[in-house]
C-alpha cells in the first residue's frame, strides 16, 4: 500500500504535466488543416 501511494504521489503530477504538453501539441497534429500559417 505504501509503495502504491508513493508511486501515485509522483506519477499523478507527472501525468498531469504530460497531459498538458499533449494538449498543447494538438495544434501541431491538426496543423495540415488549421495551424499552418499562410505561406508568405
Amino acid at each position, binding site marked *: 500500500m505504501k509503495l502504491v501511494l508513493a508511486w501515485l504521489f509522483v506519477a499523478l503530477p507527472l501525468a498531469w504535466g504530460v497531459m498538458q*504538453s499533449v494538449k498543447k501539441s494538438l495544434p501541431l497534429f491538426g496543423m495540415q488543416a488549421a495551424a499552418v500559417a499562410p505561406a508568405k
Partner: protein
Amino acid sequence: MSFLSRDATIAKPGFNRWLVPPAAIAVHMCIGQVYGFSVFKKPLARALGITAPGAGDWSEADVGVAYSIALALLGISAAVFGKWVERSGPRKTMLASWLCFCGGLLITALAVKVHSIWLLYAGYGLIGGIGLGLGYISPVSTLMKWFPDRPGMATGMAIMGFGGGALIGAPLAEELMKRFSSATSVGASEALLVMAALYTVSMIVGALTVRVPADDWKPDGYVPKATKASPVQVSVDQAWKTPQFWFLWVVLCLNVTAGIGILGQASPMIQDMFKVTPAAAAGYVGLLSIANLSGRFLWSSVSDFTGRKGAYCLYFILGAILYCLVPWTQSTGRLTLFVVVTGAIITMYGGGFATIPAYLKDMFGTYQVGAIHGRLITSWSLAAIVGPQLVDRISAANKAAGLPPGEAYNFTLQLMAGLLIIGLIANLLVKPVHPKHHLKLYADSNA
C-alpha cells in the same frame, strides 16, 4: 540532528528498495522547475506595466539572467558540495536542497513584489541554484547504491523526474499566474508562493521517505560482475585527475550542447522551416519535452544491456546522422518526419543526461560517485549557458547574411552533428581507470 544523519537513514532489513525511486523523483520533479522558468519571462518583463512593459520594467533578457545564474550555480554547488553530500547522506542533503530551492522561490516572490532585480538574481539564481545542485546529485547517487543490478534504469527514473519538472512547473505557473493576475499584478509573486508551498510538500515527503542501504546489502540473487577482485572504487580527488573523468566531461558537454541545438531554438526553427503557427510551434516544443522525458528513462535503461560506452556510441552516431537528415526534411517539406527525427534526437539528449551517473559508477565505483557526478555536471552548466548563445548567434548571423529563414539553421545543425562526432571520439577514448587511482583500503578511506 541525528534524525538527519546518514546513519539514521540506513534501511532496516525488509525495506522495499522500490520506495526510493519515488522519493528521488519527488525531489527531482520540483527542482526540474528550472527548465520551465521561461514562462515567467514575459510576465516579469511587464510586472510594472501589467498589460505591456512599462517604464522601469525589466527586460526579458534581464529576467533570463536569473536562469543562467541558477544553472551555473547548479554545477558549481554540485561540484563544491559533492563530498559533503556523500558524507551527510540523502536526507540532510534533500532538506538542504529544499531550504535553498523553496527559500529561493520565496525570495523571488519578494523580489517581484519590491521589484528588485538583484534580489531576483540572489533568490532564484544564487540560493535557488545551490538548491538545484544539492537536490540533483544526492538522489542519483542513492539510487545507484540501491540498484547495483540496474544502475542505468534507476538513475534514469530520477533524472526523468527532473525532465518532468518542466512539464509540471511551466503549466502550473501559467495556471497560477492566470488565476492571480489582476489589474495591479501579473500574479507572478503569488504563483511563486503557491509553487514554493507545493514543492515543499513534495520535497519533504521525498526527504522523509529516502533511505540508504546498509553497507553489506545486496539485492536478492545479485552477483557483482567483478568476483575475483573487489569492485573498483576511486575517490573524487583521484577521479578528478584521471583522463576518464575529462573524457566523460567532454562527452556530457557535447551531448548537452548538441541537444540544445534543437531545444534552444525549437519554436522559431519549426516556424521558419515549415511556416507553422506559433500555437503549433508551442505544441512542437511540448512534444520535444515529452521526448526528453521519455528518453531519460528509456535510453538509460537500455544502457544496462548495451553497456554505457555502447549507449553513448549509439547516441553520438545516430544523433549525428539524424542531425544531417533535418535539413533534408525541410527541403522536401516532410513535417512529420522532421518532428520524428528531432524528437529522436532529443530522446538521446535526455538519455545522455540519465546515463552519465551509471557511466561514472562503472568507471569510479559508488564510493564517492555523487561527488564525482557533481564535478562532472559543471560541463552541463557550461553547455546550458554557452550552447543556446552559440546557436542563437549563428542562426541570427545566417539570417542577417540573407539566407532564407528555412535554411538559416542548416549550418547550426551540421555543426551539432560535428560536435557529436567529437563526442564519439571522446567516448571511444574512455578506458578503465588505471589501478594507481584505485582506493587501496576502501573502509579506511572514508574520512
